[in-house]
């Protein structure tokens, strides 16, 4: 019902309200207000200004692809299986966007997912995942590994 009417130009007159969001790559997306309300940053603005919802609300830090993923996640009530199809970059983008949009449930969900993913992983995996340059000399690193040998047991394959 919502889908057929979403196309209509008079969407704001219909029962299901939609808010237009403008992503960093310039795509205008109409999003159901129930989903938008999870985004504290947009919600606070809408509530205060009671603005015309057809004027796009700019989200300069969120790409259309990321926003798509977020909307699907919220629609699927944070489905683990759906999230498992995400690439590492997508996970990180959704994380950063969830923080920017101030979506508490999503941030909690995605941070927990990443934490579970990383928990048993090697140091090399972490560096790759976050794109961190190793600035230890080989000697320094060997020394740290030697003194903390106990933490390097029972790891997953990368």
């Amino acid at each position, binding site marked *: 019902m919502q889908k057929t009417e979403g196309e209509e130009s008079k969407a704001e007159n219909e029962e299901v309200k939609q808010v237009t969001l403008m992503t960093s790559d310039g795509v205008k997306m109409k999003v159901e207000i129930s989903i938008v309300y999870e985004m504290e940053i947009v919600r606070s603005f809408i509530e205060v200004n009671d603005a015309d919802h057809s004027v796009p609300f700019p989200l300069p*830090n969120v790409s259309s692809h990321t926003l798509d993923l977020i909307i699907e996640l919220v629609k699927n009530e944070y489905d683990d299986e759906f999230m498992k199809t995400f690439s590492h970059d997508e996970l*990180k983008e959704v994380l*950063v966007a969830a923080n920017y949009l101030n979506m508490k449930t999503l941030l909690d969900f995605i941070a927990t997912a990443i934490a579970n993913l990383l928990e048993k992983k090697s140091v090399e995996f972490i560096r790759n995942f976050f794109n*961190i*340059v190793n600035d230890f000399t080989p000697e320094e690193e060997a020394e740290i590994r030697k003194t903390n040998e106990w933490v390097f047991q029972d790891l997953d394959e990368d």
Partner: protein
Amino acid sequence: MDSEKRMRGSCDAAAVAASVCPFIPDDVMMEILSRIPVKALMRFRCVSKHWSSFVFHPNLVKLHLQRSSKDNPILYTISEYGEYDDDAHSLHLSSPQRLLQNPPSVVYDHANGIPILSNYDIVGVCNGLVCLSRMHNDLDEIWVRFWNPATRLSSEESPSCYIECGCAKMAFGYDASTDTYKVVAAVMSDAKTHRIELRVLNLGDDCWREIARSSDDFPTEISQTKGMFLNGTLNWVAELGTGESKSYVIFSFDVAKETYTFLTLPNVVGEGFSELGVFGGCLCLYHIYRRESFTFWQMKEFGVHQSWTLLMNINYKYFQFPRYLIPRPLCLSADGNILILFLLFLVNIQSRKPNGSYELLVFISMAASLSLSLPWNLKAATTPLSLKLKCGAFSEGTCCLVHNDHDDMQALLQILPSDLHHNLLGQPNRSQLLEVVLDLGRFPEARYLGKHGGHYLRNTEVTVKELEYAEQAVGEFGEDNRAGIEGTLHRISAIRSRNGHIVGLTCRVGRAITGQIDMIYDLLQYGKSILFVGRPGVGKTTVMREIARVLSDELHKRVVIVDTSNEIGGDGNIPHAAIGGARRMQVREPSMQHRVMIEAVENHMPEVIVVDEIGTEMEAHACRSIAERGIILIGTAHGQKLENIIKNPSLSDLIGGIETVTLGDAEARARNCQKTILERKAPPTFDFLIEMRDRHYWLTHQTDKSVDMLLRGKSPQVEVRKRDEKCKVVVEKSKAYDKCQF
């Protein structure tokens, strides 16, 4: 909708291909790391130099502790292993369940034990941090050390606490308001009068402080050896008065306020053996009367006498163990209406082993289960187990990240008169200490963040000797009368008399504070130059330091810091870790700063130059020349507001320079203004200018627009960045500049 969806789908591929690893700010990284077990975090310290210390970031430690499960109690035990080696003891973490199911596994689990030195006793466990104590062989001194079994890091031994007679009654607690761990020792200071004194050691300090007793009631005896920590208080069973007037109370010490009060015991509890424990989040009391009965009480609501509830009352005849033993509750679990109390008995059986050491025996004698509808059902399972268990402590906390984090305060104290140490360390707001001022012939003064005026540290004047001592301890002062303390970020500045003698010192506390970067991290991504202005002490240098670290470590830029008075990177030739991988160039003479800036560009190929305190025309020109080469500049300048920079002839070049323009008559009339007007001469060196009105209230100018508006006498639009009550950064765009009042 469908067509729209497809259209978006087609740009997905492009979006993914173009995606770069997004920059993850520290606070978001903490959201992830706070959900990862300590063992894995210890492994991640290997990731990079920044991560090796980031894992112990105070905010992360706090968040991690909040997220840690408090549901599974941990049993801490020390046991001896190896037949002959006296030093081989190990600390074990296990659960009461495991102890019951398979007692030997708890103490014989050497593979998972943590080796520690012998003769240590567990004072207490707080947030998973263990405090161990050790008595000198002559029994006149005691010292402690702190142990984190989760990170396996431990502190050095503390200074010792002298004991005149008797033994020290100790306890270990945590003050959440200042994030401080404290050990309290009640010791007898006078053998004749049996006067008891309280001494406190903060984790990280090097002295025991004496707590003043108020003149009225004070315990004549503290009967319990180890106090129990609950609700920010430490609690011991104690005696008040002597002889006929003797009474039993709970001596309760407030860890934050360092004051004490007394709580009452259940009415029927008097003479006999009493001890406190913490079970089910409540203070509990177990009481043994003449080896006839064992009662177990719970104070359901802390400090409320009426809430004492009797949970268990057993006649001694049901106990199947020798009468001289003292039963101690180990765990209380509420499972529906079933309540189970486990008892653990420690006894030293006088059986001398061939190698001369005593063997300690443990009886796990009984698991009593209580159902409200059933009478006592004692499962007598008396199995004397010959376990070598020395002592046990019990905590309802869990493994955590708490780190023995010394601040650099000790280094600063080294140069101050020793009688000030006490006073400085004892201040509850010591983490807010900004500076200590020593002026000849005046009282030494401490200034704290957020407080107007100073606070005298004692009521005698500073002497010449003390200043000379400080001067010697600091070492050489630079031409600018400043010096640092090696390896720290502290700054000492001197005031000299006409003949060159030091007559005043300002000792500024430097802290590697992080966590301000989220105020501007989106600005950093533009790759534009930023100038910071604001009153002294507002946190400009701290921000410089953090920007240097983020740009170099996280955005992978080549950053060079021109560090005029070694304030950004700290004193000493190896810069402080807080600047990350950024390189630091020291400046021999402050007047040469501009030359070093140019030298940095010519020799070291930087992408970013960080420079503190741009103050002269030469430096302003050097900045322009650097900016013209396409290098990002991050700098600070003196002045509180943008107007101060515009009106300062030597600095106005930073914002484009000001010139006077004479307009033609027609033009002046058209503009409706005077014939001579001020105009900006050139594009500004710094694209953004941030006015730091307060630590958490910043105004961001787009320099060119704001300067033009101000010159025309209009109020420009600025972006306000501030923190809300939850410390989250809030950005308000397009605010009128003249309406921004902090």
